[in-house]
Structure formats: structure tokens, C-alpha cells
């Protein structure tokens, strides 16, 4: 990376231009077993169900699973990129409803769609609702991000 790099100009979304139901971001994430090992190291969560097929099978799981917190972690990134600054995210919640099984050869592709769920004109904030799906089913419930648009 060059020592001097021009920071891209971030276009902050304009609150007045948003409407409930607008899709503000959409992205696919291709997870592999490498992604899980990387997240284990970065987060400190070394539960073996996230990297050992034998352990996953022993506890009755359909396979090695992505950490719920990994899914929560990347699912918000399209919103961060759209908002232009991670500091605009003031509140983020999810419910873990279904596991993401990561195949040793093919991995797992998770799709994120971010839609405006509610607008708060007084606070100039938007509630962005995430639909996070894998294999045609949603894996997070009530996934909501509160973003202040300034």
C-alpha cells in the first residue's frame, strides 16, 4: 500500500431522500472454513464446533457452523459502507435463529439485504432492517441497525 493514499470521498446518504422500504445495500458473502478460523482468532471464540467436523457431529450438529457473531459481524458491513462511517451505527441487534453450515469444499454463501424499516425525522436516524439468508432461509431474526445520518 502506498504511504500516501487519497481517502475516497464518502457520500453520506441524505435523510430526506430515504423512504421506508428502500433497499440501501445488498451483498453476498462467500464463507469458507478459512473465514471461520480467521474469525476464531480475531474474536477469541475457539469453540471447536466452528472448525472440527468430528466435534460438530458428536454434539449432533449437521456440520461445522459459522460463529453467530461472525454472521452478525459481516451482515452489518453493507450498512456501514452505505452510511460512510462505522460511527453512524448507534445500535445493532440480532436474534440467532438458524445455523450457517459451512461445507469443507464449497463453503457457504450468505446474502444480506438492507432495507429502510423506519425513519425518525427528529433524530435524523433510520432503522435499517437486514434480511440475512443462507440456502433460501433466513438465519438472523429481528436484525435491526439504527443509523444516524447527521
Amino acid at each position, binding site marked *: 500500500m502506498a504511504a500516501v493514499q487519497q481517502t475516497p470521498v464518502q457520500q453520506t446518504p441524505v435523510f430526506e431522500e430515504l423512504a421506508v422500504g428502500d433497499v440501501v445495500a445488498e451483498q453476498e458473502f462467500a464463507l469458507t472454513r478459512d473465514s471461520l478460523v480467521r474469525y476464531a482468532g480475531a474474536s477469541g471464540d475457539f469453540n471447536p464446533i466452528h472448525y472440527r467436523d468430528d466435534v460438530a457431529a458428536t454434539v449432533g450438529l449437521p456440520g461445522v457452523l459459522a460463529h453467530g*457473531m461472525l454472521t452478525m459481524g*459481516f451482515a*452489518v*458491513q453493507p450498512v456501514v459502507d452505505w452510511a460512510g462511517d462505522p460511527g453512524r*451505527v448507534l445500535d445493532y441487534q440480532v*436474534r440467532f435463529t438458524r445455523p450457517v453450515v459451512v461445507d469443507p469444499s464449497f463453503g457457504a454463501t450468505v446474502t444480506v439485504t438492507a432495507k429502510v424499516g423506519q425513519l425518525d425525522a427528529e433524530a435524523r436516524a433510520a432503522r435499517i432492517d437486514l434480511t440475512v439468508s443462507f440456502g433460501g432461509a433466513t438465519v438472523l431474526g429481528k436484525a435491526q441497525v439504527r443509523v444516524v445520518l447527521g
Partner: protein
Amino acid sequence: MPVNPELQGRVFPPAEPYLVGREKVREFARAVFATHPINLDPAAAQAAGYADVVAPPTFAVVVQEHTLAQLLSEPDAGIDFTRVVHGDQRFTSTRPIVAGDLLTATLTVSSVKTLGPHSMVTAETNVTDSAGEHVVTAISTLVVRGEE
């Protein structure tokens, strides 16, 4: 053994202060597919008004982990770690975590509920900076599966 209902309301002593390193923020950012320059490049972060690289919104989980470890190792808690499933998670921030922050995390058990053979434990980790100002509150609900 069911989860001890007397855990409700218990406040744990603050965990060992956590110093947020720049490379740790970068490592975590890469792990959650964060590509924003503010997460990775100190110059970009400074141009946006931050002292150093900014952690992704779920980074507080790293700090929270230390407090949840206190709860799970509490001798009278009755929580069997192999039976714990993460039910839900929430982060409520006053400001993002930035490299260089010295964070203190304090855990409070806000509720213990029983649902058939299962228990639901809601734990709230309050994270403050070296000036004592609130940074983020991380709330986890852990589902402890009982014997079927």
C-alpha cells in the same frame, strides 16, 4: 442442574482493562469482511475525525467475552458451557471503539428466566473508556438447554 435464579441482578467486578490495539482492530475488521478505509487506515480514520482506526460495530464482543467468562466460571451459576446457545445479541453505542482506547467492562446479570427445561440468561456488559465515559453496552441472551 438449572441456572441459579439468584444470579439475577448480580454485578461482577470490572474485568481487567482492555487496551485496543491497532493491529487487533485491523485483524477483526478483516475477519468480518470490513473493507471501509476508516477501519484499516489510520490516515483515513484521522481524516474522518478519529484518533486512530475505528473498530467495526461488533468489536465489543472481544471485550465482552472476558466478562462472560467471569459469569460462566461463577461456581454457583450452574451454567454448563456445553449446553449454552447464543440466543440474541445487541450493541448500543455512544461512540465507536477506536485503537488506543483503554476499556473497562462490567457485567450485570439482568435476568434469569426459566422456559420449560431451559433457562435464558440475559447479561449486560457496560463498557467505559479511561475517562469513565460510556462507549458501548453489549447485551447477550444465552439459552442454557436443560436435560430433555
